[in-house]
């Protein structure tokens, strides 16, 4: 334990730099995934047939292992940050799409009827009623994607994408346990911290949505 603390103190710039790289990779992959998946979910709800097609493909694609996606990105983009980002984006968009889409689909149909009844257009109903109510489900998908992205970003080190995985790989290669743990412990801590904070956000949103729904009753 002492050796571990000494290592962190002596190499704080290295560890912080790699942690920053790690977060940048995870955050941009998750953000890109959200930017693609959220409009897909909206389109999927407006055009149900297309939505069902998307969902079927996403369910199958989710079974493809992340490391295989990472490997398959190399022939397309070479090694480095770009293929790692592609793999992260592809993996992140699946849970975000599935959660947002199912969250929108499972809303009580009478809500949409009521919106229509008071003269709202389809778009107004979607933006003002359905999207806010399905927000907790979407954040749930974001949470899964963000936590997974921390794990996949550790694998980015294998293809030259940097991040805390670098320290783990160096530690394995040099048989240096301290170095190995200096990568593994922060990576695990990041994943747990992201899970706990997004779970708290999701709980907050669920409570707020319930309050709004009760007020509407």
């Amino acid at each position: 334990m002492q050796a571990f603390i000494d290592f962190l103190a002596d190499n704080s710039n290295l560890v912080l730099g790699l942690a920053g790289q790690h977060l940048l990779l995870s955050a941009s992959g998750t953000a890109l995934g959200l930017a693609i998946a959220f409009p897909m979910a909206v389109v999927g709800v407006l055009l149900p047939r297309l939505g069902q097609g998307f969902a079927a493909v996403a369910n199958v694609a989710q079974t493809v292992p992340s490391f295989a996606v990472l490997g398959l990105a190399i022939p397309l983009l070479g090694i480095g940050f770009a293929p790692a980002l592609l793999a992260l984006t592809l993996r992140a968009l699946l849970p975000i799409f599935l959660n947002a889409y199912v969250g929108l689909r499972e809303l009580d149909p009478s809500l949409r009827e009521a919106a229509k009844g008071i003269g709202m257009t389809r778009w107004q109903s979607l933006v003002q009623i359905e999207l806010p109510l399905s927000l907790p489900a979407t954040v749930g998908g974001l949470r899964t994607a963000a936590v997974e992205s921390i794990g996949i970003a550790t694998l980015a080190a294998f293809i030259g994408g940097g991040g805390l995985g670098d320290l783990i790989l160096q530690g394995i290669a040099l048989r240096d346990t301290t170095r190995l743990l200096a990568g593994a412990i922060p990576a695990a801590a990041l994943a747990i911290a992201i899970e706990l904070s997004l779970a708290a956000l999701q709980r907050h949103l669920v409570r707020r949505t319930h309050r709004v729904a009760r007020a509407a009753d």
Partner: protein
Amino acid sequence: MDYILRNPTLVLELGLEHLAISLGAVLVALVLGVPLGITAAKVRWLELPVLTTAGLLYLIPSLALFAFLIPSLGLGTQTAVVGLSIYSLLVILRNVAIGLGSVPEPLRDAARGIGMTAWQRFRYVEVPLALPMTVAGLRIATVMTIGIASLAAYIGAGGFGVLIFRGIATADNDMIVAGALPTALMALACDALLRFAERLARR
């Protein structure tokens, strides 16, 4: 695809190795996870701490989990199997506990009302109702394990990952595809097979 066609025996051998590591790990997890899940569901005060711990451990990135095991277990197949079975164990344990916990109270009361003993209630009421959830856990664990098992090659356990790593090291895209594609196909095949088993369990 060329690589697979030129080296069918090697790819097949690695495939069998991959399957053996994955199924071995899932089997270990099943043997430990089912009793642990039952215990967590039956002993009320254990449920929350066990499920919370399992949930937190499950978040640890796979490469980091292997890294935590290497100092004590070294490199090799046993480390890979232990790491893989930890993830599977968490999924199976959680699903068994949730499956047993979700048996409706009126149903338990009814079983008690017609004079069933605790064992009979467990065997004829709770187990059949928790079975689909258990099989679902087994499916998620198997698919996940096949995916993570490709990393096991890095710590010397073999499998399709050997081709992915060798392909990355030698910049041979064909070799990467020869490792990555069969891994994905194996995961998909196991998913389909166990989805079928899940439907059978639901009947």
